[in-house]
Each structure stands twice: as structure tokens, then as C-alpha cells.
């Protein structure tokens, strides 16, 4: 255990824990956009930056990655910290003017729109938080989507923007997307469309509900060696 101070509060924390985790555990809220319990932090959105003092040196660090150490003094709301968060939100507002999540977070933190930034029209609601890509890779294990391009032209999608052979239409990317950028449509008639490809949905053996994509059940069967017939029952009928 190590002793640290966050916003003037003395806290005993477990060695190796991140500043963000410790702060949240003690009810100190640090805003984030790219953090999710299911995947490793990537430190991309920069909303969670905090100011730390260590050995007399003050610096801005990423709280979702930075690990606590004995004697660390953390300020989660210093002027410098708020400046970074304000800039990030103004930039994301300009990138994704349609995103409610970004707008609400900006409003909650009292950040005004920067009129000098011309709103983008082609980025949708994607803030490039990476959660979809990381979930697809590390949680689902299929890596159907990834990044292409770099800088401002970086975007998420299946390779070469073609139908992804690896996608199993599980919808995990949709689920983790914080801004509802990723579109998934269930036709209700046994079809699901995601990333531009339409998948067949399996009907429950018992109730007939189209409950999961066939590709996903086949993938589960392949990885668990449970015959696919045994998976053809929906959650409610199991």
C-alpha cells in the first residue's frame, strides 16, 4: 500500500493501481471518454489528465495509465488540467458537432464552443477513442476492425473498407462506443447489418426469436468446441 493525496484528501492506495481507479474508488470524479473496464487504457482522449507533484516537480499525466506511488500529490482540477480538458472538448465539439455525449460533457464542465474551429462534416460521431477496435481485438478476439490512415484522416473500419470476413456481427463495438457512432441495424426479419455487411440471424429453437448472428454462434462454437446446435437457444429459453 502507498500513501497519496488526491485533491487534498489523504488516501491509502494499492501499489500499481492507476490514479484514475484510486480517485474513482474514493468518489473523486475524473472525466473520461476512452476508458472502459473491459480493455487496457490507451490514454488517447486526454480528458483524464491530472497534475501530479513528485520530488518537487509538477507535471501533467494521464490518470488512466499513471500508477500511484508513495508520496504522490495529485490535483485533478488545477488550472492547467482544466485548460487541457477545455481544449479537448472544444476540439471534439468541432470534430463531432452531432455528438450528444460530447456536447453534454462540455456543458457539464462549462466549456463553451470555440467559434474559430470550423465544424467537421465528415467524421460522424467518432472521436477515435479506440474502444471498438480494442474490444474487437482483446475481448471478442476477432480483430474485424482497425485503424486506417493517420492524424486527422485516421478512421475506424474493416480492412480496406470492404466487407470484413472476420466480423461476426456480435455488436460489441456498438455496445462500447461512447458516442453511438457505430451503426447496427436489426431488420427484425432475421438480418443484422453492421459495418456495411448483412448477416443472417439465428432463430431460437424454442421461441423462434432471432437472437444472435449465426456467424457469432459459429465463432463461439469454434472457440469453445460446443456444437453449434447446442447454442441455438436464446437466453430466455435456456
Amino acid at each position: 500500500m502507498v500513501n497519496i493525496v488526491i485533491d487534498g484528501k489523504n488516501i491509502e492506495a494499492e501499489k500499481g493501481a492507476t490514479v484514475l481507479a484510486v480517485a474513482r474508488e474514493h468518489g473523486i470524479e475524473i472525466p473520461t471518454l476512452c476508458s472502459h473496464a473491459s480493455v487496457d487504457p490507451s490514454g488517447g482522449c486526454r480528458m483524464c489528465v491530472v497534475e501530479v507533484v513528485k520530488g518537487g516537480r509538477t507535471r501533467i499525466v494521464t490518470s488512466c495509465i499513471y500508477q500511484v506511488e508513495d508520496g504522490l500529490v495529485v490535483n485533478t482540477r488545477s488550472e492547467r488540467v482544466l485548460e487541457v480538458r477545455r481544449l479537448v472538448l472544444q476540439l471534439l465539439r468541432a470534430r463531432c458537432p452531432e455528438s450528444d455525449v460530447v456536447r453534454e460533457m462540455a456543458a457539464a464542465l462549462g466549456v463553451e464552443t470555440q467559434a474559430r474551429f470550423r465544424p467537421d462534416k465528415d467524421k460522424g460521431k467518432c472521436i477515435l477513442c479506440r474502444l471498438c477496435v480494442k474490444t474487437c481485438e482483446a475481448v471478442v478476439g476477432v480483430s474485424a476492425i482497425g485503424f486506417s490512415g493517420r492524424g486527422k484522416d485516421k478512421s475506424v473500419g474493416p480492412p480496406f473498407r470492404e466487407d470484413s470476413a472476420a466480423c461476426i456481427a456480435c455488436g460489441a463495438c456498438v455496445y462500447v462506443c461512447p458516442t453511438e457512432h457505430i451503426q447496427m441495424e436489426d431488420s427484425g426479419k432475421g438480418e443484422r447489418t453492421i459495418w456495411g455487411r448483412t448477416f443472417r440471424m439465428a432463430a431460437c429453437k424454442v421461441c423462434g426469436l432471432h437472437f444472435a448472428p449465426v456467424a457469432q454462434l459459429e465463432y463461439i462454437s469454434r472457440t469453445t468446441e460446443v456444437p453449434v446446435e447446442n447454442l441455438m437457444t436464446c437466453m430466455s429459453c435456456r
Partner: protein
Amino acid sequence: MSRISTLKDMDRAAQRGLASLFPKKTKIMVGMATSGIASGAQGVYDALAAEIKAKGLDIILSKTGSMGLDAIEPLVDVLEPNKPRLSYSKMTPKKVPLLLDRLSSGAADAIKPAYRMDADDFLVQGEKKPYLKGKLPAGLKDIPVIQDIDFYKKQVKIALRNCGTIDPESIDEYIARGGYYSLLKAVADMSPDEIINDVIASGLRGRGGGGFLVGRKWQSCRHAHGDVKYVICNGDEGDPGAYMDRSLMEGDPHSVLEGMIIGAFAIGAHEGFIYVRNEYPLAVANLQCALEQARACGLLGKNIFNSGFDFDIKIVKGAGAFVCGESTALMASLEGKAGEPRAKYIHTVEQGLWNRPSNLNNVESWANVPVIIARGGKWFSGVGVRHSTGTKVFSLVGKINNVGLVEVPMGIPLKDIIYDIGGGIPGGKAFKAVQTGGPSGGCIPDKLIDLPVDFDSLWEAGSMMGSGGMIVMDERTCMVDIARYFIEFLVSESCGKCVPCREGVYRMNEILHDICRGKGKKGDVELLESMSKGIQDGSLCALGGSAPNPVLSTIRYFREEYDAHIRHKRCPAGVCRALIRYGIDKEKCTGCGVCARKCPVACISGEKKKLHAIDPGKCIKCGICMETCKFDAITVE
């Protein structure tokens, strides 16, 4: 190539190398680094080869790297036994017969060398070996010796010690000039701690930009937990206008390998990587050749110098992303992942490549190491100034007469580099500023011309040492346009992982474009400044963290130019097209008509020998009229 395991083997190789550095018959060397090839050295080399063959001359023809003064390439050196080595500048295939005739007839006037070398400086051994033995031949008295040439006078060559002198494909010549003796000394006579202490004592700071103490980094990596450790050479030089590392890898690849092997031995690594950008094909080829030679001689591989130490190196080619010069992005790229940096809260010396302790240094840093081991850290720290020891290689480019690579002791005044070594600004124009530290460095204005060039002074002036690009600008350079240029470069090179760099630098670019187009708004400068603070504090890696530097340093020193663009819609330097207007000076125009003929849109008219006029409605502001007018009659406002 026979195995080199002992001092005796080394001495034998050195003897072979000396025989080829000081041959008993005439030898001609062509500077064939990329800078030479770009100015036509391959044609000169081919012409020499053909002519020597056709005339049946008994002459050795070989290749060498770049001596540095790229402005006078292609450079051909002629070495006749016991005579000074003569360097012929701006050679062409047409001049080749003249050169060879001069050799056979001794006729001095047909073609004149630019300078001569009476002796060769063997830096590693700390001795001079004369080329000239006996009296100086009569015709050579008025040829200056290299040390008297302004470009070379104040230079001190440590990292570039062999460039332009040896054949980069000859390991024997490298050994003859003291190469690999430092490695032998390190593995045979020194403990890893002694090596590290010597490198610490040298004060050598990383030459890639960060300026961290090399010896301390080695020490941390040596003490890091883990059996498998790596050493890495960063050859992903990507700053616009910078080519120090390229020239070094091309001209003296063994110096980089030797530095790495010594480092690996000190740190306890058995595997090394050289990450070179694919746009450097000659550097890759020469490194590959050096690797194969070193392996064949047993200087890489198992049981180096019978010490029980094993080490080998792989070359990995980068696909051309600027950000891969950042150490964590480089390591991600080595792992086969996209070149994106990560936060460095856990240092790469603890967890780097494949999460193992990894020591990364830049090409130039590695190349300094063998000299430090040979001459001692104390000797090295005697060169340069306190806290910035040794020398630094700069590529001096832009509006400067002597374009080239220079190696100077740290702490040298900027003005010595610009005026003495660089020969000043072409066309009698005034010096305005110099950009150092690459795209994320800063601009140093003319009023700081006396600034000592070392890590800390550059930092205090709002710029940085960076890897060593030095882009010189004259009075006709618009500083807002320069800031826009560098920011635009960084926009296209940002990896896109974190928001402040990806979106913030992009928005700065938008604003700068607006300012240059006359669409700047009141408050733009203040907005750029406050965004800069957020980007510096908020970015994930050093690329974003230092990206605002060109904007901040130009605002700091050239604020009035920003104001002129924004408030008065004027570009004082006459560069930003939307804000300028070309005209013709009544007094100066002779009516020669050259500008009218050269104008691509035919917007200049006038009768012969009478005043001409520009139609501002049609003018596309290309500036060709201004460049072609011999009478300085074109004005810009």
C-alpha cells in the same frame, strides 16, 4: 574475410587498410553519398571508370562518403603516393579527361583542385599520418589546405571522423583508422561498469533530440530487471532538411555498429536493431554490407573477440512515418504494430521493445561511442562546453551559401556557423532567422546571432537542439508562412492517437492558413498561444508536446509579422500570395522584356525598351518575374 579474434588479427586488418588508404599507386576517390549522387557523382564515377579502362591507366578507383560541403559536390579526391590528397569540386563527366591528363602531364592549369590535404587526422588514435612526404610539389603552393578553408576551419570531426575519407564498404580501412580497437579494448580490458562510467564521464547527451545523458540511460538499462535486453539504433531521421544520420550511415556504417556492440556489451544485450527509414536506400545498403563484413570477421555473432560475448544486429526498415522516430512508436513499429507512441511513465529502459529493457540511441550518439572508449570520457568532455560536451553535426540548409553537413564543438556561437562556416546568405540578403530542432523546434532570430549553440542555450531561446537540422532563412522569408509550413508537416505526420495533437495541431494549421490568406481574425494570436499551452500539456508524446514550438517561437520573436498579416492584411516579407502585389519600379525597368517572356500567364506587357506593367487582375503571384529580372525592377508589397 578471415575471422578477427585477437589484437594480432586486428593489426593485420589495419595494415591492409593502411595499404589502401595510403596506396603505392594513384588512387581516385569519388564522394558517393546521396548528396554526391544527387549532384551527379555516379556519372563522374562511370566516366572515370571508362576513361581509366580506355587509357589502360594503373589507377585505383574507389568510393567514399560525404566530406560535408555538399554545395561543391560532386567531389573527386586524387591521391598520388607521397603527395597531398587533392579534392576537385563540382566535377562533371566532361572534366574527367582533363583531370586524368593533369595526372599524367602534371599540367596545373587545365583543372584546379579546390583544396588539398597534407595529412590525414587519425582521431581515434590521436595522431596525424602524412600524405605529403618531402617537399610540396611546386604547382600546389597556391592550393589551400583543407584546414584553411572557411567551411572546415572551425569544424571538429568526431562523429563524422571517417566520412569522406574511407570507403564505407571497406572494413579494413575502418580498422586502419582505429575502428573496432575500442570494441576490443571494451570487451578485453574493461568491465561493463567501467565502460558505462566512461560514457557518463564523457557527458555525451543523446543526439536524437532529447539530450538525455547516454551513459545514465545505459546504466538504467543495465540495472533493469530481465535477462533479455535490446539495444536499438534510431535511424529514422525525418526532420525536413536534416540528413546528418543518413550521411553517417552511408559514409561510416561501421562506427554505428561498433558503438552498438560496445553498448550492448556494457548493458548486457545480445540482440540489436537498427531502424532506418526506407527512403534511405544507400544507408540501408551500406549498413547491410557493414553488418555482413562484421559478421564474417566475427565482430558480430558468437564469442566476439573470444570474450564469450554474443551479439548480433538486424536492420528493420521504417515505412516513412515521422512519428516512428519517437522511441515508443519506433518500438511499436519494430514489433510489427502501427507506429503509435505510448505514455512513457514506465521508461523504455525498463520496458521497451516486447516489454523488455531496451536502450535506444540515435545514429550520431552511437557513432561517438568508439571515440569515447578510445580517447576516454575525460578527453571527450574537454570538447564543447559544460553540460553540452563533444560536437554536434548539423545539416546547414536553406538560404546559406555553403550548404552542407558541419560538425562543430558544442557551444560555438551561432554566427560562426552562419557566417564563417556557412559563408553567409546568398545574394547579399540579410539573415533573418534559423530554424533548429526540426519541425518541432523553433526559430532563432538574427538578434540572437551570438547565441552559443548547445542544448541549454537553444532551449532557453525557445528552440531545441533536436537532431541537428538547421534551416537558414533570409529577409525574404515570412515567419508566419514558416510556422504554417512546419505545422502543416506535423498535421500530416501526427499519428492520430491523442486528441490535442490530432485535432489541436490541425486547428492551429487552419488558423495559420487563414492568417496567411488574409483571413486572420483579431485574437488569433492569443488563441494560438492558449491552444499551444493545452497541446503541450495535453499531448501523449513529444511530437504533440513540442508541435506548437514553431508557432510559439515565431510569435515570440516576430509578433509584428503576425499583426501585419492579421490587422493590416500585409505580408512584410512579400511571400503570402493573397496579401502581396507585384509591381515594376519605374526607375529600374529597362524594358528588356525578359519578365514578360517568362510570365506563365502573360500578364506583363510593354514596348521594347520602355517601362513594362503588370496586370494585377491576371497576375498569379508566382514571383517568376522577380526571379528573372536582372535589374531588380520588380517590387513586391
